[in-house]
Structure formats: C-alpha cells, structure tokens
C-alpha cells in the first residue's frame, strides 16, 4: 500500500540537491568550470523533463550520474580542439618512470612497497578523497584522458576516435598519468595514511 505520508523532499528539490555532487565529477573530468557547469545544467534539465518516482534517493543519484557521463562525453567531443592545443606545453619531457630509482642495469634500486588493500580499511572514504586529489593533480589533458578510461570507462580506441588522437599520443599520456598517480598515492596514502 502506498499510503506513506512522510515528508519526502519533492522530486525537483532532490534533483537540485544533487547538483553540487555532480559538479564535483564534471569538474574532475573536464577541468573547466564553464564546461562542467553546462554539463551539470543539461543533466538537471534532462532529469526534470523526465520526472518519475524514484524509490530511493541513491537510485536518482545513480541515474543522474549516468546522464552526466553522456553529457560529459559530448562536452569532451565538442571541446577537443581547445584542449589538444593546450596539451603540448603543459607537461615536461621527463618520463615519470625516471622518478623511480633504478640501477644502471635497469633493476629496481629498492623493492617497491607492499601496499596492502586500501578498500578493506575502515577509512575507504578518506582513501577515495586522496585518489580524487591525486587525479586532480595530473596535468589537465592527462587527467581528462585518464578519467575517460577510468571514470567514463571508454576503451583506448574509443578515446582516440572521439578526440582524433593518435594511439601513440594516448598511450604516452596514460603511461605518464598512471605513473604519476602511483607516485601520488604512495606519498599521500601508503606512506602517510592510516597503518597499511
């Protein structure tokens, strides 16, 4: 029987409440406030045009994140020229692999640390905050490409097609992004964080 009368916020209010949440991810992926605001506005509009009864707030959230991902891909496609130009001079020529100490013969100078299992720890929320901060510290174009792989879950081929990028270029950027992220996590979580 659907006769419950507790004061649930209206659908419109629920949608509006999610804006800040969505904006965080749009910013992280797009690295541009205006584009991020636009993608979120379009997502909210799409949600309002299709009001339906969501049993639980988290269902609405999941659904809106899904729409946001589509809007974000549209924005990336639309602005690809602007960030391909910026990309060339934002990163040094040094391969981050050079920041790991190797001996002259190519062997590790010291054993890589055992990281353990961060998600099994009580403070997984803190860990995810560090992960986001590290992703946000990547040079903008590397961050975008990396999150296209890891948040939008696009394949390397799809990314190259969407952005007219050569695979060599993409692989170099992802190689650097992943090594930088590894370094950042090691410094900010595995060495300083709660006991591993």
């Amino acid at each position, binding site marked *: 029987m659907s006769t419950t009368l507790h004061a649930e916020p209206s659908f419109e209010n629920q949608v509006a409440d999610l804006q800040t*949440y969505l904006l965080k*991810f749009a910013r992280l992926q797009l690295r541009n406030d205006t584009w991020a605001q636009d993608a979120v506005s379009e997502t909210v509009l799409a949600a309002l045009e299709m009001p339906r009864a969501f049993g639980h*707030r*988290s269902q609405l*959230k*999941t659904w809106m*994140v*899904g729409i946001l991902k589509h809007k974000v891909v549209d924005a990336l496609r639309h602005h690809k020229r602007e960030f391909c130009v910026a990309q060339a001079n934002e990163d040094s020529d040094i*391969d981050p*692999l*050079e920041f*790991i100490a*190797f001996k002259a*013969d*190519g*062997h*590790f100078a010291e*054993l*890589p*640390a*055992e*990281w*353990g*299992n*961060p*998600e099994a720890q009580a403070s*997984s*929320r803190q*860990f*995810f905050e560090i*992960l*986001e901060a590290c992703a946000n510290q990547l040079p903008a174009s590397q961050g975008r490409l990396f999150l296209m*792989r*890891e*948040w939008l*879950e696009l394949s*390397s081929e799809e990314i190259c097609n969407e952005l007219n990028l050569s*695979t*060599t270029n*993409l*692989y*170099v950027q*992802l*190689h650097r992004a*992943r*090594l930088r*992220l*590894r370094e950042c*996590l*090691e410094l900010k979580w595995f060495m300083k964080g709660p006991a591993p």
Partner: protein
Amino acid sequence: MLGAEMVHERASAVIPFRRTCKQVAALLIAREDRALALQHRLALRLHLMACEACPRFERQVLTMRSSLQAWRNYMAKGEDDEQTAKLRR
C-alpha cells in the same frame, strides 16, 4: 617519445625475452590500457617468475586497478550508501 618502451623494442631485437625491471614496469603500466603482444606477455611472465621486485610493482598496479573500480562504484552510488554497505559487511 615512449621512453622505456622504445628502449625495450630495441633491446628485444637482440635478446628476445629478456627485460629489465624498468622495461617490465613500463609493460605493467601499458597493460592497463592495451593488449600486449604475445612476445611481451611471455617476456613479462618469465621476468615476474624470476624477479623479487617486479611482482611487488605488479601488485601496486593491480591495487590501483581495483581501487579505481571501487572508486567508480562509490562515485556512482554516492556517499549515502557507504554506511549501509558497511553495516551489511
């Protein structure tokens, strides 16, 4: 431009399955975004069997992989669900 990757293409022309740790680290990172050629997969396996350091690096890369997957789920469902998920555990 690919740095270690390029070096290792040249080296592999001389000794087909021999890789340094540095080359193996580059391959382990590359494996996250593309399928490696058979000869690289084989060289990787042989190196990982014999090396003490590289399996540790591989575990770091795999931890990053699973953390990113967990993060994706966390972002999709949002903070609300975290408490409920923990209670269920």
